[in-house]
Structure formats: structure tokens, C-alpha cells
């Protein structure tokens, strides 16, 4: 039920959640039509369905104090995506240890993990995408060629300003302009999901 006691429009919710999910995937260098969280096969659509299922069956409740329904569901979905990446990064650390032990041992050849258990070479490393430093570097790379977006990113990342009004004051512009820049940044992130930070580009998985 929505905050006004009305039942929500699920067509609208599914569309908006899908769009938000694409931006979140873009944040973590996951882009392209068939993007999935590496090693899990979970796509944006899977996360949208999960959160809608949980809401429709009462496992997620909408409380007015937590914001609008879209914010509650979008936040739950974003947390699911980050958790999936983090969980996978944890598993990968263990897999890497197993791989390095097995690779030197011919006797234990049969114990080597299957090929699909090795990280995909084109996929971002989940352990880096949930790292704050890497996250910051990646966002900077995405906006490097567009000064208004670069200013916004610097205000948030360097000056630690979080409210649109505070960012607007620091940049000498209006809060409405900041909202527009955020919209542009969302678009940029959706389109540049495959952009990797300089650190990630140099990494061999």
C-alpha cells in the first residue's frame, strides 16, 4: 500500500525500478544489454522482480517514515545489488585461494574449479566495485569530459556536500540546476556502465 493508503501502479513501479536498476548497475561498471552481476547471473530484471515479489507478498513493508514507496523499493533493490556483488567478491577471494593451491598440483587436477567458476576476464572485479575508493575513481572517470557534471561530482566527493541546496550554493547555481545535472549523470551512468576506473583497467583477473 502506498503512503496515501492507495494501491500502487505496478506498471509504473516496474518501469521506474528497471530504470533505476540500470543506473545502479552503471555505478558498478555493469552495463550493456545482458549485464549481470559476475558469477551470479543476476540481471537488473532479476533484482526488480525480487523486490516487487517481496513487496507484493508483504515481505517488504512500506512505512511512510522511510520515504516514498519508490524510494523504499529502490533502496532495497540497490542494497540487494551491492550485497550480491559483495557476497560474490567474498566467494571469489576463497576461489582464488583454491585456484592457486590447485594450479601447482597435477595430482589434484580433478579438484580444480570448473571454468565458469573463474572470474570472467571482461567482467568487473566484484571486490573492487564495492570498494569506496574504486567507486569514487570510477565516477570521476565517467564525468571527466563534462565540466558541469565534474563540478557536481567534486562537490559531493571532495567537499562532502549531500543536499542539492548545499551543492548549489557551493557551485553558485540553483538547486533546480543541480537536479538537472543529476538527471544527466544518471543518463551518463546508464550509458557508460562499461566504463572502468583507471585502476580496474590495469587489473588482470
Amino acid at each position, binding site marked *: *500500500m502506498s503512503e496515501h493508503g492507495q*494501491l*500502487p*501502479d*505496478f*506498471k*509504473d513501479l*516496474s*518501469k*521506474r*525500478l*528497471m*530504470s*533505476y536498476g*540500470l*543506473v*545502479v548497475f552503471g*555505478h558498478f561498471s555493469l552495463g550493456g*544489454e545482458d549485464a549481470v552481476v559476475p558469477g551470479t547471473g543476476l540481471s537488473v*530484471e532479476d533484482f*526488480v*522482480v525480487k523486490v*516487487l*515479489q517481496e*513487496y*507484493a*507478498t*508483504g515481505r517488504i513493508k512500506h512505512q511512510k517514515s522511510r*520515504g*516514498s*514507496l*519508490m*524510494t523504499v*523499493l*529502490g*533502496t532495497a*533493490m*540497490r*542494497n540487494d545489488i*551491492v*550485497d550480491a556483488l*559483495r557476497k560474490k567478491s567474498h566467494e571469489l577471494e576463497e576461489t582464488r585461494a583454491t585456484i592457486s593451491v590447485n594450479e601447482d598440483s597435477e595430482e589434484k587436477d580433478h579438484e580444480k574449479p570448473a571454468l565458469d567458476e573463474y572470474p570472467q576476464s571482461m567482467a568487473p572485479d566484484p571486490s573492487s566495485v*564495492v570498494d*569506496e575508493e574504486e*567507486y569514487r575513481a570510477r*565516477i570521476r572517470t565517467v564525468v571527466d569530459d563534462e565540466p558541469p557534471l565534474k563540478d557536481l*561530482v567534486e562537490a*559531493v*566527493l571532495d567537499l562532502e*556536500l*549531500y*543536499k542539492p541546496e548545499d551543492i548549489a550554493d557551493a557551485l553558485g547555481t540553483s538547486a533546480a540546476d543541480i*537536479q538537472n545535472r*543529476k*538527471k544527466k*549523470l*544518471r*543518463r551518463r551512468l*546508464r*550509458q557508460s556502465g562499461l566504463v572502468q576506473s583507471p585502476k580496474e583497467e590495469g587489473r588482470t583477473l
Partner: protein
Amino acid sequence: MKRRTPEEARNRINRLSEALIGAPDEIGGEEAEQALGEAGLDIEALQERVYQRLYAEAQQYWMAQKDLPPLLKKALDDLRPLSAPPRTEAELARQAKTSVERIVEKAKLLASALVPEAPLTFAESYRNKQDLTETDRKSIDAVQEQLKIKIERLKGKDDKGQ
């Protein structure tokens, strides 16, 4: 640097994310449609897939002979694809209306593809034919004029329609 718990690390990234791209509810329906279009996603097909998966969830309730939670029932009603057989007269009317709207939309597209954007010029080589009488020429000119008027009228309607 202080070592953060996974929960704290996630909350930090979430805070930065919201400051940079806004809260989830800042994405409106229009922006969402544009974004999905740019990503090459068919919204109707997406909603049909979501419907199928929620339907699978609903089957568990039906098999257990339990009532559907009201929100799940609403989700299935909202996302029910147009290709599914109508269950009520209202649903039938909605499907018919949408189908007609789609046909009209396609017809408009077809008409705009048939009617050229550039100024019209007619082939006039017939004027050089020796065996045409003056009456023949007048008749052909009249047909040409009528065609021009008809096409201009069509173009005018099409422009208004857009």
C-alpha cells in the same frame, strides 16, 4: 583509515550515490520510459516477463488454496499482458481500445511514410507526346492538380496529428 563494517561501507556508498544521482523516486515515469528506450528494452515485454514471474509466485498460493495477498493480486491485474484472454467486460474493452489505438498509430506511421516531406513535383514528360489532344492535356493537368491538393491536405492533417 578506520576499517568499516560491510554495512557501514554499503551505507557510505549509498549516501554518495543518492547525493550524486538522487533518491530512487527522483526517476519519474517519463524519464524511465526514455531510459528503457535508450537501453533498447521493450517495456511491454519487460512487464510481461515480470507478470509471468509474479504469476508463478501466485500459483503457490492457489495450490495451497490460500487467498492472494491484495498487493500481489493488484500487481497481476496491473501487469496482465494484453495478449492474455480477458476475464471481464472492462478488461475486454481495455484490450480492444489499446488494439485500436495501436492500429491507428501504425496507420499514421504508414501514411507519413507514404506522403513525401519534400515539395511535390510531377513527371511531365507526357506533355511532349504527339498524339495527345488539348483536352487530354487538360484532363491530365486537372488530375495532377487534384492529386496535389489531396496530398497537401493529407500532409496538413498529418502535421496537425503530430
